[in-house]
């Protein structure tokens, strides 16, 4: 490949600099893209396609800081399987994207490297935690990007920024090289300008990996064709996802999308997922518990910078962790340590594990009644103002109310743009059955063709 495409990719990314969405310095980006373009395999299915990568996914080309001071300047000695598969398919790794520190947040305001701006309104957030990836795709800087999900960190920013975001089934994509946050919930996800862009990247990164025991021994996802109609599809509307307090414009956009689904021939019926109200509290026990364990490894001994002011090894741990982690990560480590500590384990952690089972059973009950897919709003509101929810962690957590359930149940889910309110995008969510991403993508293909995604709802 000549150097011209690599230069054009770098130019587009540098032009989007005002968003603070990319953490890779322009000089490093240009140098690496030229080298990658020269080495890219022309026979790959993604030959020449630039894909930006969230900063919590390990790459050899660029540093991996997870948006944290505690990993500032960290160079991984290996790369994620998903990244290796992208490169093997001829894609260009187009730099590392800004994110909430260790993927903990819903607004990309919790990055040690500054907040990411919403591409359509700089006073608003792009969502999070993969806000940098979503913003770059929405700004047209790259056609696709990798993000990661623990509770909605791909779908929520995709909805806020007006792009497509897919979270695959737990076990569909290898987690090797994805920096661990909540290991029973984490999955690499994909952003795209269109359903097809996102789906074809997902297809490339999916499939077995002997290095990740939680990755299923399955062939890569086969992409469906764009269907003529949705005849034969049964789509459920869970009533718990359409509460009275739902933003009226979000409701209007969903109603319009449902009319389109019916026009396409799908049979639409109301269903119930009765344990949904407990999903956010369940998530905010399990995810911090797993985080407090996973983040114990950052102690100033093996990776990243070591902070001054220590006399012995224990004060080295405490100083490095106290100064290296930001406020939201500290909060979650403390909450996780609390719920796992003696005397509280049964009251919180065990109860949350049981509730997770009931939430997963809710979905199985719906599938058993012949429902193929669920359609819901992705987020209860459009993108909120920067700073609006920073002082209130619970208000921030409620932004994930419609997305955490798919993570808890390990199901595939995706967001696609279905309309706008005062110029701000609204996302519609499809939730599918485990390892039936092809059906979910088929319905998304059909809906994408007819829904007026940029029209006011």
């Amino acid at each position, binding site marked *: 490949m000549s150097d011209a495409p690599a230069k054009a990719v770098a130019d587009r990314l540098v032009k989007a600099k005002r968003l603070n969405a990319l953490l890779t310095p322009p000089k490093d980006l240009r140098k690496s893209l030229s080298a990658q373009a020269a080495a890219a395999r022309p026979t790959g299915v993604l030959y020449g396609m630039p894909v930006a990568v969230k900063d919590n996914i390990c790459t*050899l080309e660029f540093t991996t800081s997870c948006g944290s001071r505690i990993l500032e300047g*960290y*160079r*991984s*000695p*290996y790369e994620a399987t998903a990244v290796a598969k992208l490169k093997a398919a001829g894609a260009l790794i187009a730099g590392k994207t800004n994110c909430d520190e260790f993927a903990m947040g819903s607004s990309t305001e919790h990055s040690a490297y500054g907040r990411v701006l919403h591409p359509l309104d700089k006073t608003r957030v792009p969502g999070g935690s993969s806000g940098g990836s979503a913003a770059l795709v929405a700004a047209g800087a790259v056609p696709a990007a990798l993000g990661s999900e623990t509770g909605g960190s791909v779908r929520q920013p995709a909805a806020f920024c007006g792009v497509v975001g897919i979270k695959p089934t*737990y*076990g569909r994509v290898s987690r090797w090289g994805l920096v661990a946050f909540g290991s*029973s919930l984490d999955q690499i996800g994909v952003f795209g300008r269109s359903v097809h862009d996102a789906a074809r990247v997902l297809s490339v990164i999916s499939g077995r990996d002997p290095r990740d*025991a*939680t990755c*299923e*021994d399955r062939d890569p996802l086969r992409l469906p064709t764009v269907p003529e109609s949705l005849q034969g599809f049964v789509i459920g509307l869970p009533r718990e996802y359409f509460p009275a307090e739902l933003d009226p414009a979000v409701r209007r956009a969903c109603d319009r999308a449902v009319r389109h689904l019916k026009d396409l021939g799908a049979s639409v019926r109301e269903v119930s997922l009765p344990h949904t109200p*407990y999903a956010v*509290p*369940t998530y*905010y*026990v399990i995810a911090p518990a797993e985080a*407090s364990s996973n983040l*114990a490894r950052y102690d*100033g*001994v*093996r*990776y*990243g910078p*070591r902070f001054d002011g*220590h*006399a*012995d*090894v*224990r*004060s080295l*741990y*405490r*100083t490095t*962790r*106290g*100064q290296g*982690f930001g406020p939201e990560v*500290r909060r979650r480590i*403390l*909450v996780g*340590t*609390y*719920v796992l*500590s003696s005397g509280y384990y049964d009251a*919180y952690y*065990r*109860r*949350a*594990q*049981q*509730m*997770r*089972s*009931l939430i997963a059973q809710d979905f199985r009950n719906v599938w058993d009644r012949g429902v193929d897919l669920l359609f819901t709003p992705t987020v209860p509101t459009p993108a909120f103002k920067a700073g609006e929810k920073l002082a209130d*962690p*619970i208000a921030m957590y409620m932004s994930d109310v419609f997305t955490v359930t798919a993570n808890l*149940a*390990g199901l595939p889910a995706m967001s696609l743009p279905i309309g706008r309110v005062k110029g701000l995008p609204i996302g519609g969510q499809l939730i599918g059955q485990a390892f039936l991403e092809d059906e979910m993508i088929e319905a998304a293909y059909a809906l994408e063709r007819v829904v007026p995604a940029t029209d006011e709802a």
Partner: protein
Amino acid sequence: MSVSREEALRIAQLAELDVDDAALPELAEQMSRIIDYVAQLSAVPANGTVKAFVPGPDAIRFRADEVNPAPLAFGPAEFAPAFKEGFFLVPKLDQFE
């Protein structure tokens, strides 16, 4: 408040996390709000027969018991804060409890 300042400090020590004295009241207050919020799970009747849900493969796949290290592009000397002759260097250990 469900989490006192003393309890927040004890948890921070368990988590090996330095917390400023000045920041402690606000941290205890925020932890309390989060703990009070997730405590709504206790309103649901405990059911001893419900097993914990674990996503992923139904059966654990066993692999051959072989040492099979992942290839590293470079060694720990490149990313460790202090590394010498195959060891990560740390300060003295004598005050470790």
